């Protein structure tokens, strides 16, 4: 099975506090730690496990600037066979549709049975997988938390729906799936793994290699444009308790007793 996994380099929210820059045009990016989008990492692990069982190869692709190469390389260190970076000044400022347009061109240059994305990324949109499937006229399923290969024509998949229930479907190949966290336990990537792929060449494709018209992607083509970043004023918020740990604990215990929080 030939599998393509789309990954994104994002600020790691587990490592960073995200703050709005003073002029509101962006978030503070100076000291941010970046990593591979968490959902995408589960998708790569799933692809590797599927190929371990059914044979084939895993290709990891990212749309981004030259720094995105590091996440492609990291996912190759996990065990993906090939890496691909889609990078061009014309791609900057793409909305979800722009990103899907770029990925579609890359998909069409290969011959994939299965295309995986993460269900969500840093912008919380969860849109690229579904858009890509529609552009390629392939069946799609979102928030997938289980994949079983039935034969070379179809998969049995589970979608995580509300209440932690699982919606089971049979889906024809080739297809596009967006992967939910928790579907597997992504393997640890050690220094040795990174070293092994350190000198592997990762092709970089832009508009000309992909055959994408520059005006169909990027900021100019975007129909959804971000104007600013801000932190909403949501009224009073929490009463913040201050003092030493002991003082705060004493105050909190009084409150908890009053509310029935200590039995």
């Amino acid at each position, binding site marked *: 099975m030939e599998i393509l996994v789309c990954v994104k380099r994002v600020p790691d929210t587990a490592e960073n506090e995200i703050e709005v820059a003073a002029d509101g045009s962006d978030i503070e990016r100076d000291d941010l730690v970046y990593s591979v989008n968490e959902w995408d990492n589960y998708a790569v692990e799933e692809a590797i496990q599927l190929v371990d069982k059914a044979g084939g190869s895993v290709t990891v692709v990212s749309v981004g600037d030259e720094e995105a190469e590091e996440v492609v390389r990291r996912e190759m260190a996990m065990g993906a066979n090939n890496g691909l970076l889609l990078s061009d000044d014309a791609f900057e400022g793409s909305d979800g549709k722009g990103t899907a347009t770029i990925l579609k061109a890359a998909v069409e240059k290969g011959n994939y049975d299965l295309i995986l994305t993460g269900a969500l990324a840093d912008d919380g949109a969860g849109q690229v997988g579904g*858009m890509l499937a529609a552009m390629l006229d392939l069946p799609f399923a979102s928030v997938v938390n289980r994949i079983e290969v039935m034969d070379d024509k179809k998969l049995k998949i589970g979608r*995580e729906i509300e209440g932690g*229930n699982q919606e*089971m*479907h049979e889906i024809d190949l080739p297809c596009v799936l967006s992967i939910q966290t928790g579907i597997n336990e992504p393997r640890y990537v050690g220094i040795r793994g990174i070293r092994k792929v350190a000198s592997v060449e990762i092709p970089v494709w832009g508009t000309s290699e992909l055959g994408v018209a520059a005006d169909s992607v990027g900021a100019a083509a975007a129909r959804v444009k*971000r104007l600013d*970043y801000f932190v909403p004023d949501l009224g009073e*918020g929490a009463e913040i308790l201050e003092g030493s740990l002991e003082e705060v604990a004493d105050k909190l215990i009084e409150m908890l007793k009053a509310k029935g929080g200590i*039995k």
Partner: protein
Amino acid sequence: MAGQVFAYIVYKEGKADDTALELVKAAGKINPDASPTAIVTGSGSDLDAVCNEVTASYKEVWKFDNEALAYPNAEIIRQLLVKVLPADAVVLVAHDTFGMDLSPGLAIMLDSTFVPDVVDFEGLEGDTLKAVRQEFSGQVSTHVNCDLSNGAVINVRPGVFQADGAAGVGGQVIDKSSEIGELVLRRRYLETVEAEVGDVDITKEDVLVSVGRGIEDQDNIEIAEELAEAMGAVVSCSRPIVDAKWLEKSRQVGTSGQTVKPKVYMALGISGSFQHLGGLKGNPFIVAVNKNPKAPIFQVADVGIVEDLLEFAPVLTEKIAEGK
């Protein structure tokens, strides 16, 4: 001026979801003059019941009755909507796991604009709609301008547009089933597997000590367990803890886990994403402990403590034990 507004109605067991009314409210926020049309798909008596129910809040209700639509499979419903919607339609869909499945591809097939997970609208000028979204799990918000000149599919976050209740509109149901035509089944629904029941039922507990990513390590779970024991509470958690397999899925609070309604909720190292808060009902007294003062949980908590839970929780446990 943007095109006709539609709302896709989600329902279960013959009863419309709360979002059916929320989408009316959302449509009004986009354009006070809009009279949205409800779209209800399905089969049989449940479908009829829901169509009748939503005539109280929608003037026009389009009904699509077909056996292939009996289970709401977005792969099939998308094909149907592409056939029956006008090219410049503005389609509102709840941003739940169905909306995430349906909408991005629908916008591509209609060649319209997709706007995901909207939490507010700030007005329509010509064909440009200004909307509010959140990024980084709600840590920051953004304004976005959306071009509606070619129509749009807009996913609206459940629960943010609080509805006033059905307005007694007295609308009419229009049976559009004859327009359904042939539907291709490339993804076939098999069954729904119910979530496993765990050793404790967190939905029935009055006091929950809930842990998130801030617990950092599996070995630290016992810090929460000790606090819970001192308080007479039960340990629950947010999604990352279950993904890491540190606690059972049955302990997870959130839209993809359990919906709980405790009296007191201690959120330890939980950032407070809307998916997590979506599982917290009944207006509990919320205590948030988080070392990030900008964590969204502090906006909804009653009491906040800006400390590392790994330092604060053991002190609290000890103090409670001393007092007993």
